[in-house]
């Protein structure tokens, strides 16, 4: 690679690859730097990519991209110690495509990087950016692990949740343990036919689970499950703060979850194909760093752009990459790379679903985290107790049972604390639905 170019992008995840492709398509000279052997080999997620946002960047991607199953069902499992209540929403596809697709990052990110390369971007792999180069208060390039220096008019930082580089620039403070969840997952091999039978799926369809309670009862943690073609991914994400304070090992929690009677039959006979770990930004709106400066923009997880209530991240990453690319194109046309011009990037984010959603959800995680004992422990347990009582046939008059259940709640919780929790929930719901 020549030592100077129009745009350098650091990190070939969903954000960096989308930005690179869009810039290359506009005829700009762009270099995309990735530390891994190939794009995706350092990354893991749940996970599924969402069709509506993804197709705006990669039209008809489902025809050529390495997608596995089309998601037709979202289940929410509230687990007790041995019991559980599962709510499922099914929606079969009405057309050619599905609302979301399960993918693995090793294949998906690699495919995205290929699209960028085909558009004309230069992908430099196995190269770690160690330092952002400055001239006064202007960003002018990067320095890599081999000591080489590369220069560009704009640098886009898309290096993911840890974003050592955004921190280096002083654009963001160090992340606090309560602002990230540590996630681990296991990809389990299960025969294709067995997956379809156990999860009630067809040849091409898939499902996901969001899991609350069980071994995560009372701590800020959620489990997830996604079906692949002949694999099932199951994992947990737990607030690092909770792991740290309670001396918990994440894999103990996952082992326990896999043994839960609601889930274990689904995983019968599975063999472990791969274990992995990754952080998820959890700080939300309040932890979004400074997003741009002279000659620089920060996108995706590096900018903490994740809506973790919905396991959404790739869409925010791709779209912030797209907005940064569009802003860079304008800047190149004006030949002005100052903070003033790049402010357009933040404007675009503000006018889009990205910052609007981040704002809508800003209180959800902090409220849940502060009240994990109640919202992720006590109430889910009560749901299961209610279902147990509701479904058991035992010769006790129903009315006596209901009164017994209600008085148990009042025995365990004082009226003021119930009202307080209720208000918190209403506030949260109002914040999300009415804002």
């Amino acid at each position, binding site marked *: 690679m020549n030592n100077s170019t129009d745009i350098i992008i650091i990190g070939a995840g969903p954000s960096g690859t989308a930005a690179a492709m869009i810039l290359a398509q506009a005829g700009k000279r762009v270099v995309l730097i990735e*530390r*891994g*052997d190939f794009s*995706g*080999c*350092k*990354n*893991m*997620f749940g996970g599924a990519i969402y069709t509506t946002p993804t197709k705006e960047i990669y039209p008809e991607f489902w025809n050529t991209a390495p997608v596995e199953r089309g998601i037709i069902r979202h289940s929410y499992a509230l687990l007790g110690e041995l019991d559980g209540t599962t709510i499922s929403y099914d929606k079969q596809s009405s057309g050619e495509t599905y609302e979301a697709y399960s993918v*693995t*990052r*090793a294949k998906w990110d690699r495919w995205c990087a290929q699209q960028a390369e085909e558009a004309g971007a230069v992908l430099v*792999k*196995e*190269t*770690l950016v160690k330092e952002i180069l400055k001239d006064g208060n202007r960003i002018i390039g990067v320095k*890599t*692990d*081999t000591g080489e220096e590369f220069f560009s008019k704009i640098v886009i930082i898309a290096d993911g*949740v*840890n974003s*050592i580089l955004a921190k280096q620039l002083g654009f963001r403070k*160090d*992340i*606090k*343990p309560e602002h*990230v969840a*540590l996630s*681990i*997952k*296991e*990809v389990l091999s299960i025969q294709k036919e067995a997956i379809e039978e156990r999860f009630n799926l067809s040849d091409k369809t898939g499902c996901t689970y969001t899991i609350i309670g069980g*071994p*995560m*009862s*009372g*701590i800020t943690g959620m489990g997830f499950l996604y079906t692949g073609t002949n*694999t099932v*991914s199951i994992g947990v994400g737990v607030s*690092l703060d909770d*792991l*740290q304070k*309670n*001396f*918990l*090992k*994440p*894999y*103990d*929690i996952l*082992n*326990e979850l896999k043994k839960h009677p609601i889930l274990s039959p689904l995983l019968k006979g599975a063999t*472990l*194909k*791969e*274990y*992995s*770990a*990754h*952080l998820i930004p959890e700080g939300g709106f309040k932890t979004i760093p400074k997003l741009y400066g002279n000659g620089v923009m920060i996108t995706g997880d590096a900018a903490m752009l994740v809506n973790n209530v919905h396991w959404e991240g790739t869409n925010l990453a791709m779209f912030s990459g797209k907005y940064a690319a569009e802003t860079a194109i304008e800047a190149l046309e004006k030949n002005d790379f100052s903070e003033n011009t790049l402010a357009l990037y933040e404007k675009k984010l503000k006018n889009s679903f990205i910052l609007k959603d981040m704002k809508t959800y800003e209180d959800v995680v902090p409220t849940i985290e502060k009240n994990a004992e109640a919202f992720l422990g006590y109430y889910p347990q009560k749901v299961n107790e209610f279902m147990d009582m509701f479904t058991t046939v035992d010769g006790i008059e129903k009315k006596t049972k209901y009164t017994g259940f209600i008085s148990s709640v009042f025995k365990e919780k004082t009226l003021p604390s119930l009202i307080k929790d209720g208000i918190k929930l209403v506030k949260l719901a109002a914040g999300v639905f009415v804002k």
Partner: protein
Amino acid sequence: MSVEKTTPGNIDEKLSTIKYKPDEKSHLSVINQDKCKDCNKACTFFCPARVYEWDESQQTLIIKYENCLECGACRIGCINQNINWEYPNGGFGVIFKNS
């Protein structure tokens, strides 16, 4: 919360499914070993790859950097900010193929 404690073997089995290309030099180091002595050793619990182990007889923290999954949890979660944390150089470290 009822979480059964694993035997160390269990995590080794999980790690054995992962491909690594370890560098000769560690990308992780402790800044001040004395600080670890008085610490609750949280890193030996939350690290998903059990990279950190407290050696009682030597009173030092052992770092099996070859097993690191590069998640960054210890960088943020070390109570004393006592870990010098870097990514491995380009091309080295963990290679996820199926996640």
